[in-house]
C-alpha cells in the first residue's frame, strides 16, 4: 500500500459512499483525523463509525486533488472537498490538505486539515444550520 493509494481509497470512500475498501486497507491502530468529526479515531471500529456519521451527514461528496507530493511512506496533498449536506440541502465547499502514511501493514494514518468551524456534523447544530 502506498500513501497515494491510501488517499485514493479514502476519497473513493466518500465519493462512492462505501467505506468498506478503505476499512479493509487500514493497519491495526490506524489513526484517522477529520475535523468535521471533531475527535481523533483510532482503529478500524472507531474509523468505521466516524465514516458512517460523515457519510450520513452528506448526500454527495467529492474530493478533488490539485497538488500532491509523496515519498515512500507519506503523501501530502491539497485540494477541495465539495459536499452536499443532508440536513440543510446546501453545498459546502471546503479547501483541504491531507496527510497519509502507509506501508506494508496498510494505512497507518490519514489526517485531514480543513476549517470545519461552520460545518460540524454534530454537537453544533445551530452553527451548521446557519451555514450556507
Amino acid at each position, binding site marked *: 500500500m502506498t500513501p497515494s493509494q491510501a488517499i485514493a481509497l479514502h476519497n473513493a470512500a466518500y465519493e462512492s459512499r462505501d467505506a468498506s475498501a478503505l476499512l479493509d486497507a487500514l493497519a491495526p491502530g490506524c489513526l484517522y483525523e477529520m*475535523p468535521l468529526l471533531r475527535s481523533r479515531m483510532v482503529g478500524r471500529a472507531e474509523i468505521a463509525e466516524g465514516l458512517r456519521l460523515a457519510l450520513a451527514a452528506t448526500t454527495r461528496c467529492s474530493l478533488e486533488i490539485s*497538488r500532491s*507530493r*509523496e*515519498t515512500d511512506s*507519506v*503523501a*501530502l*496533498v*491539497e485540494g477541495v472537498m465539495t459536499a452536499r449536506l443532508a440536513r440543510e440541502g446546501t453545498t459546502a465547499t471546503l*479547501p*483541504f*490538505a*491531507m*496527510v497519509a502514511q502507509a506501508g506494508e501493514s496498510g494505512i497507518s494514518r490519514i*489526517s485531514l*486539515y*480543513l*476549517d*470545519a*468551524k461552520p460545518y*460540524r456534523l454534530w454537537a453544533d*447544530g*445551530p452553527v451548521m*444550520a*446557519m451555514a450556507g
Partner: protein
Amino acid sequence: MTMTPTQALRAYCDAFAAGNVAAIADLFAPDAVVDLPLVGARMTGHAEVMHEVESAVRGLKDIRVQIGHAIEGENDVIAEGAFWSELVGAGTKVDGTPERADFRFVVVLEIKDGRIARLSEYLDTKPVKPWERQRIIPTSVRRSPYWDGSIAAGAVEFMAYNRTTFPMIYSRTPYEDYVALTQRVTMWDVGCERQAHIKGPDALAFADYLVARDISRLAVGACRYSFVCDPDGQILCDPVILRPWEDTIWLSHGDVDLHLWARGLAMGSGFDVAVCEPDVAPLQIQGPLCVEMLRPIVEGPVDDLKFYRCMVTKVAGIEAVVSHTGWSGALGFEIYPTSSTRAMELWDALLEAGKPHGLVVTGPNVHRAVEKNVTDTAYFTNSGMNPFEAGGERLVDLDKGDFVGREALLKIREQGARRQTVGLLIEGDLPRLEWFWPLTDAAGRQGTVRWAMHSFALDRSVGIALVDAAVKVGDSVEVHHPLATVKAQVTTLPFVED
C-alpha cells in the same frame, strides 16, 4: 539570496516565532498570495499580507513552530507541522487557564524568483479562536459573594440576574447535574436572588399591598409564593415571601429591581416601613439528601421545618435564615446568611457537609424545573403576561382589599384572559433556547415558546408556551425553532408530578 522552498518555509517559521516582521517582509514577493484560515480571507499583495502577518505576530507570544513531514517539489513544498502560542491581551480564562492558540497544520508554499509567491495554511480554526478575553468589566453586574467557589467548582457560563453574577453551567453533562439533583443533593450559588427587605410596624400590611396574594395573616416563620404586578396587571416578578422576624418581610425575588419599586411605592404612602436591599446572598441546597446533609450543620431543627416555613438559625455557626423552599420543585432548602461577610466560609462548610452525600455544585437545573413547571418570570421578558395567563389564578386574591394591579386584574378576570400557559410535547431534539421561539396553531394563532428543554424523565423534548386562550389540550401546533419547524402537542402542566 536564492532559497529553496523548504528553506523559505523554515525561514518564515523562524521569523514568525521570533516576531521578526521585517524578516518576514523580506521573504514575500510583491504579488504574493496568502491563505490563513485564522484571518478568514485570501490576502493578495505584499502590503495586505504584511498587514495581517504583523497583526498575527503582535497578537501572539511565546510562539513555537515545528515542521514535521515536508516534501519538496521544484518550486513548492507541502509540509505538516504544529504551532504553539499564547494570546497577548486576552488575559486568562476565569479559572486562570491561559488563552492559547495551539494547532496542527499543513502548509503549501510556492517560490517564485527566490521569494514566497504563495503560502496557504490548512487548519481547523474552531479550537483555536479564543472564547474568553479581557474586556470592560461588567460594572453593572456584581459578583456573587460565592464567585470564587463557583469558579473552583467549574462554572463556565454565567448570566446576569438582579445585576449579580449567576453561574448557570458547570463543565459536566446535563444528565450528571440532573441525577445529582434528583438522586443526591446539589448546591446552587443564587447570590443573585435578592431580598426586597421591608421592615417596620407596617411591614406585613405594605407587603400585602405589593403582592396579589392575601398575605395579611402571614405568620412569623411562614413563607408564601406570590406575584408582584404593576398597575396594568403585568407580572413584575414572582417572589417567595418570607416573614423571618415579626417586623420584617423579605420578598425573595426574580430579575427585577423590586426593592426600588417597593421603596418608591413606600415613599409618602403612609405605611410606616423602611425598604432596602440587604447584603443577603442565598444558597440553595436541593435534592433528596438535603436534610441528611444539613442536619449536622444547621443549629435549628431542619427535620421539622415544614414546606414553605422558615427559621432564623445558624448554619456552620453563621447567622442565617433557612427556608424549606427552592426552585427544584422537590425537597430543598434555601440558606440566607444575614451578611455576606463570611460567605465563602459558609460555602466551604456546606461543601464539606455535602461530601458524604455526594454533593455537586450546579446551576439551577432547567431540565427538572421545566418538568415540574417551576419557572420564573421577569418583567422585561414576560411578554406582558399577567397572573391569569401564567396559570396563577389561585394566587390572585382580588377580594383581599386594595393592592397594586388589582383594578387591572379585576378587568382581566371579567373579560377573560386572552392567553394561557400550556405544556408542549415537542417533536425531535431541540437546540438551545436563546430567545423565545414563535409558535402557530392550525388556525394561524400566534404563541410563544418560553421554555424548551429535553426532559430526562420523559426522554423527549418538552416546552412551556404562552398561547391563545382558545388553544386546547391535545391540539397540534408548530414550533419554529432556529433549526426547523417542528410539530408539538399541547398538554397540561406539570409534565412530572413526583
